[in-house]
């Protein structure tokens, strides 16, 4: 257990993954980030901390999450065997709880009073509100007005859990703007608040810390898959918004050269400007929200409008380690659009009885395409990062007619 969170050399001590990452923040914030880094470095290999965290993973989250062989869907595609890492079965319904518990415990240890965060689909917000309730901290969640309308059940969930949900009305009223407002609130009081960021993004140490907390997913999967099939998966697939569920699955497999890895970005309505959020596919290196990474930006250096049917993927940036993995060609970044994701949402529901989150449906969509091109003895492991309960109203309203729901 002691070496569990340790075995990756990146980032360097300044938070760089090759040329990406770092800490591009005003000096008012750097002091408190240094404190968080220091506190995290102290606990990350601490036996007592890890025992506490892993007890929660087991008894509270329900880890390890199972791996399920989606036989009917594999059969339908007539190619490779599709397996699902069932993060959707976690308490609160997504992988986000993994890094929320870690960050909440750390914040508590540092004597903070309030956890704050942005949320897109509301999954991170719900998970953080849950963790805050569990460890006894206040919780403020910043969420775009557009996403609040789209993800009502999660908004209500957060409020039931005792969190404040602050509606963000600036800009496009979605995830990027929620990050802006959460950072502003954090700068207003970095002493009593702890910004528990929702993905592997932001300034150092967040990309490292969130990845470390999420990497339990891949470590479990590696062992489980071996036990089930006798070997490692031939392919890994995960959706990429900020990139936390993807880093969670990928990290334990990065050294396994024979395992091909795919990150799926949302191509939304099309790959035309403003109609997608395919950051690694179409972005250029830049700095936003305190870190350097690929970024969808205009020629003036302002972030572009982004769009995806999945609120949790709707972000013009991406975690810095993904940028490095792209440049190193260790991970192949591909896209799936709204309509493919909706098809996959219904396919998984109707062939396997599993309603996926719209975010995760992007990963499923690509996996289906990939499976069709591969032999039957090949395997694909998909990170099913969340369940779709939060999305059913929106899907029924927007696409229900086409799929016989309404």
């Amino acid at each position: 257990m002691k070496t569990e969170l340790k075995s990756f050399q990146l980032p360097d001590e300044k938070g760089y993954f090759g040329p990406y990452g770092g800490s591009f923040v005003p000096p008012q914030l750097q002091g408190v980030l240094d404190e968080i880094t220091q506190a995290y470095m102290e606990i990350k290999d601490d036996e007592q901390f890890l025992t506490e965290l892993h007890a929660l993973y087991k008894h509270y989250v329900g880890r390890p999450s199972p791996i399920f062989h989606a036989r009917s869907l594999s059969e339908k595609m007539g190619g490779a065997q599709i397996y699902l890492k069932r993060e959707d079965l976690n308490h609160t319904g997504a992988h986000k709880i993994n890094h929320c518990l870690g960050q909440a415990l750390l914040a508590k240890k540092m004597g903070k009073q309030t956890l704050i965060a942005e949320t897109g689909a509301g999954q991170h917000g719900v998970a953080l509100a849950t963790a805050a309730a569990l460890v006894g901290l206040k919780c403020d969640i910043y969420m775009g007005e557009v996403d609040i309308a789209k993800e009502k059940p999660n908004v209500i969930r957060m409020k039931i859990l005792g969190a404040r949900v602050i509606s963000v009305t600036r800009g496009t009223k979605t995830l990027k703007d929620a990050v802006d407002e959460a950072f502003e609130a954090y700068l207003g009081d970095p002493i009593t608040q702890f910004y528990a960021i929702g993905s592997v993004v932001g300034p150092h140490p967040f990309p490292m810390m969130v990845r470390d907390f999420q990497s339990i997913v891949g470590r479990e999967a590696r062992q489980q898959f071996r036990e089930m099939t006798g070997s490692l998966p031939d392919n890994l697939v995960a959706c990429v918004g900020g990139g936390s569920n993807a880093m969670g699955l990928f990290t334990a497999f990065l050294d396994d050269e024979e395992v091909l890895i795919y990150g799926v970005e949302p191509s939304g309505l099309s790959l035309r400007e403003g109609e997608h959020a395919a950051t690694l596919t179409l972005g250029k290196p830049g700095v936003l929200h305190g870190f350097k990474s690929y970024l969808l930006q205009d020629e003036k250096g302002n972030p572009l409008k982004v769009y995806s049917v999945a609120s949790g993927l709707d972000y013009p940036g991406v975690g810095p380690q993904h940028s490095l993995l792209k440049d190193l060609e260790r991970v192949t970044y591909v896209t799936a659009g709204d309509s493919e994701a909706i098809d996959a949402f219904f396919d998984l529901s109707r062939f396997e009885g599993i309603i996926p989150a719209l975010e995760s449906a992007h990963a499923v969509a690509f996996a289906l395409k990939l499976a069709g091109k591969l032999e039957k003895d090949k395997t694909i492991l998909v990170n099913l990062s969340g369940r779709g309960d939060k999305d059913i109203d929106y899907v029924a309203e927007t696409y229900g007619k086409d799929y016989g729901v309404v």
Partner: protein
Amino acid sequence: MIADAIKNKTKAVIPYITAGLPGMDATGEIIRSLRAAGAAAIEIGLPFSDPMADGPVLQKASHLALKNGFTLEGLMEHLGDWTTSIDIPLIVMSYINPLMRRGIGETLSRFRDRGVQGVIIPDLPSDAREIHALCRDIGIDLIRLVAPTTTLQRQEEVISQCSGFVYAVSVKGVTGVRQCLPGEVARQVQGIKAMTDLPVCIGFGISTAEQVNDMLAFADGVIVGSHLMERIMGDPNPVIAAHDTLRELIGPGIESIR
């Protein structure tokens, strides 16, 4: 020389204005009116969509200026005229991402070619030795920010990569909120002065002549941003508003133009 311009002034006040608000021509006129009102140097902020270090007033200014069609290329056309129309240093404040679009070196060289003497990048990482070396080669001052929460070790790092002046942030949060007490600021400035001969200027949240006087008792200069922009944005005649606001801050009795 920025350092000299500050040290040679009995009351060094550096106004901050957002470029392109209400328009590029107005910015030029405001710059000249601020010079006439006795500014020691002028800081112009380049609007950015996600200005992480700015409070509500400067955020609004940024967004309005972008909406009015501000572009870096448009700015480049005016900068030369602006710097030649005043005999005090012009300093550019910009978040790092817009500067990176054509390469930081090229962009800073173009500023320098147009007479800009210094640059402030609020979201520069504290170890910025490459950019510091670049600025030195180009011949433009890299003014660095130090906050009350900056650790001693980081202060040393930042100040060793700083020229022109040290910008002491006097708030614990963003511009316009969470003001530090004068005693805290005095200690902060004394700490910085023990490390460097560069002038130390205080900024963030200064809005009255009294504050200016208090701060100048121990600092070499003050920067006034949000208060000035609020007045500029709220007045039908921004050029006169800018002039009058700065005059009020510098205060009566003291000869402001040497």
